[in-house]
């Protein structure tokens, strides 16, 4: 069988093209390709070379339209045993090709050529073309003459013209030889035999039969020569005769041959006029050809005829018919004895299926071809097998990435993030893993045999990468050794398009993935909120600054993998990647950071990684892995290599758009001292942050802000220090102080702390994410505006995050707080100090002591009595250090205390230090009297009055729901003035955060602490002006402070002040009691006489006014007496009821003042 046969093959003149002498392969290919242009020589073109020696047997030769066809066979072909049967199988001409520079001696060339020609006995014309002769050779050659044709060096066009002339000459010579042969055959008659005949014994019967058949065979052969001579009409006439003769003699083989020749003649005759009628005719005739061939062996002719018909019909529309023919032909393969025949058959089948567009069928037969090649077990066959298999890879979708054209891969399904699952499925089209593995394995085998290490490497890599789950660990090891063996034979630095080891990129890590500010300021509040770009993944890198990309590598196979180097592969040339070496143990995955430096402004696209592994450099694309993972997710591919390695922690991200901007300043920070700042709860400490500009551009603008949790723990940071250091030149440094205050451990944290601190151990609280961070936004100089008109782009700013790693240790813990109250009655004196301008100095005077504790006793201006109020805090120290507690109260200096301010003192009031030893608890007293209680202030009310003009503000306060809010506000105000400082050791100090505790403690008694009684009572001695000595004595603190003489009429007056905004009607009564508490005005044993009214005094007190009521007492017995005023309020309003904490509206409200002491001294 012969490859590439078609119906027209019968009309082609075979020309052997032989290299003579040394011809470099590339040149030979070049010369051969020049020859190929002259496969068809028009008869009209050769008429000038043609001389009719005698009458031409080709009577109907179409000189104007016909042509001769050549079939050039490089290297020639061995003579076929069937060349008598089909003359086109003969080598009818020989063209030698000689490259003169490599064959200097032309004589040798001539002799070599003639020797070569001896192998082709059927050749009628022999020519040797010598290209590129030297001058001497030209002279020499012109003398040689004969068959040697010299092609003088010239440009290609000239050479081609020369060659054309030569070919026309050859064609003419052949034509004349054909004529001669035909004339000879007609006259003498030749014996034509086929291998079929030779087997028959030469019995007389056979000889007679052969003689009978001789004529028919001769006619058929003449017909063949007519076809070769380009005269289909003559050929047809001879074939018709041959048909009749061979039918008569029962020579079916030659009958079929004549029929076949007739079809060819028909086609040549109707050249270019193909229609369905012709097609039907050809089909009909060829069916009978096939039928006749079938009658005789060998089967090859039947198969060839089938293939010829199939090739003739090979069109999509006739696919079914062609497929039938080809299937029949394929069935014939079993009957073929010769392996090479089967090879040719499969090759032809593959070609025809390929022409039909049946890629998979073609691949199937190609693989059969490859298997036949592989059976031959020699290197050349293995190379052929490898090449054939490479053709099948497309159909089986295992092609090497090198062979996939760029635009095919570029048409990005992967670009589209929202892929429909249908298109996802299509990504994994034809996942015939069994087939793919078999094909790859065969490629590997053939490549190994063929000695092509790169192809072997590539096949092994593809096998490993795509099908590792289906390969046993032993097989994987085998592949790995195949890879390294192949790599050993490859030159170092070889690149392969097929990656071996799977990986993916996981995350882009960068110091800053932010927006470019749109104004001269680093942050403008207007642009901050809005999205800066349409695409989410925008990344800006800066020239000259190291960036890192996290890439996850996985080795799911059963062997240890050493990646010699891996670095980011960047298409744009503005990125310097740094390679790293990675060792991946069996079945493991690893996240590595690949770094690099952008070198120039512009976009950067990272497609993947360049990996140097197993001795070969490959590029791994992220996209492929993305697709793989997508497929794994959908269950379309075998397995996710990362999950099988126990990975999957990192989220896969798509590669963002990255652009590189010009150099920017780069601030580097570190906290002076240790990395972590360890603080007790509430501790206040300064830390220093050292900032240095590590960039190449100076920092021109800077802004510091806070972020993260517990921001309030940063009390202050010296942004001014930083700003004053601007511009910060490259290399310049600055240190800024930051004042920190440790936060309180939360409830949950405290629990943990409590559990852990059972044995007094230090509990470190170092949970991440609790610490605040300093955000330093900074930028370089504005780009030099060469043209202010142009909308210059402002270089982006940067953000530096300085995390303050604060470790909070448990400090003092608060146990409870409570309010301690104590009331000390006042002495009745000449004045009413408590009402108008009471101050601490007064009280000092009154008490007559300068001791510290006495300072704490304060007059309640609205009650008229002395009071002692403490907030008692119980603190315990669970830590192992000693704390010193100092309470300080910030005194108010507010301007609104115009008339009722208790204290004018603005300084802080310090108390004694309390020391709490480790594992102990202590109580700390905080005096409350120093506060001006704001709710008592007239100004407070006045403020409310303004907002609430009717004056029912208090009613509102007490009755409405906002009571709580008002109270809370005032309590908060109060609490904020109390500071409990602690100090521990030499340099650890802080403030105890006990606001909540105080709040809770004050909550219950807040009314008593903060609100005045509605009525204030005060007693005063009235002295007549006529007794100045008493007056002066009264002024003296020690002698006659409020003392009254017994047996003396003592005029007194009681003052009742209305603290409300409403008129109060009341019934005032005054009681005077002795030390035992007995009333000493009424009853039989009255020791005090009185003048005036003491009980049932009805009075009306206008709002915020006071009314006085005078009376006189006459004390009979010296001693201590106390005067108590009480008032029954009539028609109490809601406000008063609320203050008195009564609910029933009918209950009378008794308002009792504090007792006033009167010291009665006897006359001495």
């Amino acid at each position: 069988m012969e490859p590439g046969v078609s119906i027209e093959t019968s009309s082609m003149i075979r020309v052997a093209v032989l290299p003579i002498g040394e011809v470099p392969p590339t040149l030979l290919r070049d010369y051969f390709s020049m020859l190929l242009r002259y496969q068809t020589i028009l008869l009209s073109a050769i008429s000038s070379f043609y001389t009719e020696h005698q009458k031409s047997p080709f009577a109907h030769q179409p000189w104007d339209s016909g042509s001769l066809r050549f079939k050039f066979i490089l290297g020639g072909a061995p003579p076929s045993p069937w060349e008598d049967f089909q003359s086109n199988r003969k080598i009818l001409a020989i063209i030698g090709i000689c490259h003169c520079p490599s064959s200097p001696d032309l004589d040798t060339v001539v002799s070599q050529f003639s020797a070569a020609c001896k192998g082709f006995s059927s050749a009628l014309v022999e020519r040797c073309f010598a290209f590129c002769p030297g001058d001497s050779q030209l002279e020499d050659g012109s003398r040689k003459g004969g068959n040697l044709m010299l092609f003088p060096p010239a440009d290609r066009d000239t050479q081609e013209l020369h060659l054309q002339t030569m070919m026309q000459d050859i064609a003419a010579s052949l034509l004349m030889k054909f004529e001669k042969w035909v004339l000879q055959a007609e006259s003498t008659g030749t014996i034509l035999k086929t291998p079929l005949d030779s087997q028959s014994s030469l019995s007389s019967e056979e000889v007679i039969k052969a003689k009978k058949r001789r004529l028919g065979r001769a006619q058929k052969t003449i017909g063949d020569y007519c076809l070769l001579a380009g005269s289909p009409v003559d050929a047809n006439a001879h074939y018709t005769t041959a048909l009749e003769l061979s039918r008569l003699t029962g020579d079916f083989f030659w009958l079929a041959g004549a029929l076949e020749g007739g079809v060819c003649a028909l086609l040549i005759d109707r050249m270019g006029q193909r229609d369905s009628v012709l097609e039907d005719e050809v089909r009909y005739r060829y069916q009978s050809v096939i039928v006749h061939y079938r009658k005789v062996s060998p089967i090859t002719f039947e198969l060839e005829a089938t293939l010829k018909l199939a090739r003739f019909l090979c069109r999509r529309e006739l696919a079914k018919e062609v497929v039938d023919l080809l299937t029949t032909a394929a069935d014939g393969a079993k009957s073929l004895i010769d392996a090479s025949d089967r090879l040719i058959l499969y090759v032809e089948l593959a070609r025809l299926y390929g022409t039909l567009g049946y890629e998979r069928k073609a691949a199937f037969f190609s693989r059969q071809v490859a298997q036949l090649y592989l059976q031959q077990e020699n290197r050349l066959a293995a190379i052929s097998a490898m090449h054939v298999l490479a053709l099948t890879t497309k159909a089986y979708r295992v092609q090497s990435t090198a062979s996939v054209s760029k635009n095919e891969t570029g048409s990005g399904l992967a670009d589209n993030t929202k892929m429909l699952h249908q298109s996802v499925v299509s990504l994994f089209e034809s996942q015939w893993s069994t087939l793919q593995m078999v094909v790859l394995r065969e490629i590997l085998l053939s490549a190994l045999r063929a000695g092509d290490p790169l192809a072997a490497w590539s096949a092994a890599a593809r096998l490993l990468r795509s099908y590792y789950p289906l390969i046993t660990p032993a097989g994987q090891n085998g592949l790995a050794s195949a890879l390294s063996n192949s790599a050993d034979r490859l030159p170092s630095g070889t690149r392969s398009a097929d990656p071996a080891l799977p990986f993916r990129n996981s995350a882009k890590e960068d110091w800053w993935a932010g927006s470019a500010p749109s104004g001269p300021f680093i942050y403008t509040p207007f642009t901050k909120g809005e999205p800066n770009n349409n695409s989410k993944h925008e990344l800006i890198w800066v020239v000259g600054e190291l960036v890192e990309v996290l890439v996850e590598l996985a080795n799911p196979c059963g062997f240890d993998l050493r990646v010699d180097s891996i670095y980011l592969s960047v298409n744009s040339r503005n990125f310097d990647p740094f390679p790293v070496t990675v060792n991946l143990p069996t079945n493991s995955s690893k996240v590595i950071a690949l770094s690099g430096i952008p070198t120039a402004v512009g976009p950067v696209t990272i497609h993947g990684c360049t990996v140097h592994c197993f001795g070969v450099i490959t590029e791994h694309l992220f996209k492929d892995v993305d697709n793989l993972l997508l497929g794994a997710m959908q269950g379309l591919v075998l397995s996710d290599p990362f999950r099988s390695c126990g990975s999957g922690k990192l989220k896969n991200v798509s590669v963002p758009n990255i652009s590189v901007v010009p150099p920017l300043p780069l601030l580097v920070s570190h906290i002076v001292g240790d990395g972590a700042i360890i603080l007790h709860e509430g501790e206040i400490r300064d830390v220093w942050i050292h900032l240095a500009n590590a960039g190449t551009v100076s920092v021109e603008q800077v802004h510091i802000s806070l972020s993260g949790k517990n921001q309030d723990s940063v009390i202050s940071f010296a942004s001014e220090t930083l700003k004053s250091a601007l511009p910060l030149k490259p290399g310049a440094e600055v240190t800024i102080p930051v004042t920190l205050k440790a936060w309180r451990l939360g409830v949950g944290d405290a629990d943990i702390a409590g559990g852990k601190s059972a044995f007094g151990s230090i509990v470190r609280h170092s949970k991440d994410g609790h610490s605040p961070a300093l955000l330093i936004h900074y930028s370089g100089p504005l780009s030099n505006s060469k043209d202010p008109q142009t909308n210059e782009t402002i270089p982006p700013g940067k953000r530096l995050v300085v995390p303050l790693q604060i470790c909070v240790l448990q400090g003092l813990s608060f146990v409870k707080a409570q309010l301690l109250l104590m009331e000390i009655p006042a002495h009745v004196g000449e004045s009413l100090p408590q009402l108008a301008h009471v101050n601490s100095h007064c009280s000092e005077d009154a008490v007559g002591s300068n001791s510290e504790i006495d300072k704490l006793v304060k007059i309640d201006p609205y009650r008229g009595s002395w009071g002692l109020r403490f907030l008692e805090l119980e603190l315990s120290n669970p830590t192992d250090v000693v704390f010193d507690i100092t309470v300080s109260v910030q005194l108010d200096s507010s301007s609104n205390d115009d008339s009722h301010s208790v204290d004018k003192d603005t300084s802080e009031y310090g108390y004694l230090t309390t020391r709490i030893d480790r594992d102990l608890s202590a109580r700390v007293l905080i005096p409350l009297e120093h506060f001006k209680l704001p709710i008592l202030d007239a100004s407070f009310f006045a403020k409310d009055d303004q907002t609430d003009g009717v004056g029912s503000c208090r009613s509102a306060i007490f009755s409405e729901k906002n009571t709580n809010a008002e109270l809370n506000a005032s309590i908060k105000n109060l609490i904020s003035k109390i500071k409990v400082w602690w100090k521990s050791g030499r340099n650890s100090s802080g403030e105890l955060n006990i606001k909540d505790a105080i709040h809770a403690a004050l909550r219950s008694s807040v009314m008593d602490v903060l609100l005045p009684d509605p009525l204030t009572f005060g007693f005063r001695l009235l002295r007549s002006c006529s007794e100045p000595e008493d007056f002066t004595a009264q002024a003296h603190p020690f002698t006659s402070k409020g003392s009254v003489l017994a047996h003396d009429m003592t005029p007194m007056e009681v003052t009742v002040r209305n603290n409300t905004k409403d008129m109060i009607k009341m019934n005032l009564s005054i009681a005077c009691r002795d030390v035992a508490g007995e009333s000493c005005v009424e009853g039989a044993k009255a020791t005090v006489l009185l003048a005036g009214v003491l009980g049932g005094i009805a009075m009306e007190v206008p709002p915020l006014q006071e009314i006085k009521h005078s009376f006189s007492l006459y004390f009979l017995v010296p001693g201590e007496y106390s005067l108590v005023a009480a008032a029954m309020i009539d028609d109490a309003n809601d406000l008063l009821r609320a203050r008195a904490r009564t609910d029933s509206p009918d209950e009378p409200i008794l308002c009792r003042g504090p007792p006033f002491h009167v010291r009665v001294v006897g006359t001495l």
Partner: protein
Amino acid sequence: MATTACFIIVSRNDIPIYEAEVGSAAKREDAAQLHQFVLHAALDIVQDLAWTTSAMFLKAIDRFNDLVVSVYVTAGHTRLMLLHDSRNDDGIKSFFQEVHELYIRILLNPLYLPGSRITSSHFDTKVRALARKYL
């Protein structure tokens, strides 16, 4: 039962979603591979042939040596392909019809993504039982 038979379901995207060697012949790896190669190649013919008829059962559409490929194309262009060496059209037709029904049940599973591999062992068991019954 046929001595050699290989059943395969090919999704509309030309991906094999189910494979089973259902023949009674001794299993040989290279034979199984050849079966798949033949079936894969037959897809080319199915792709043209499926549109020339309204029948779902396309009968024997391809052969290689003595292996015959019979195909049944569902409305969704999922192809049930059987490689066999016996000529029992009726049995094969029944086999295909019943497997089609099984396949539809798989499709009705809301968790099954059409076009992905059929991993149900129940399906596998049933198909093998049907193969024993009809082939």
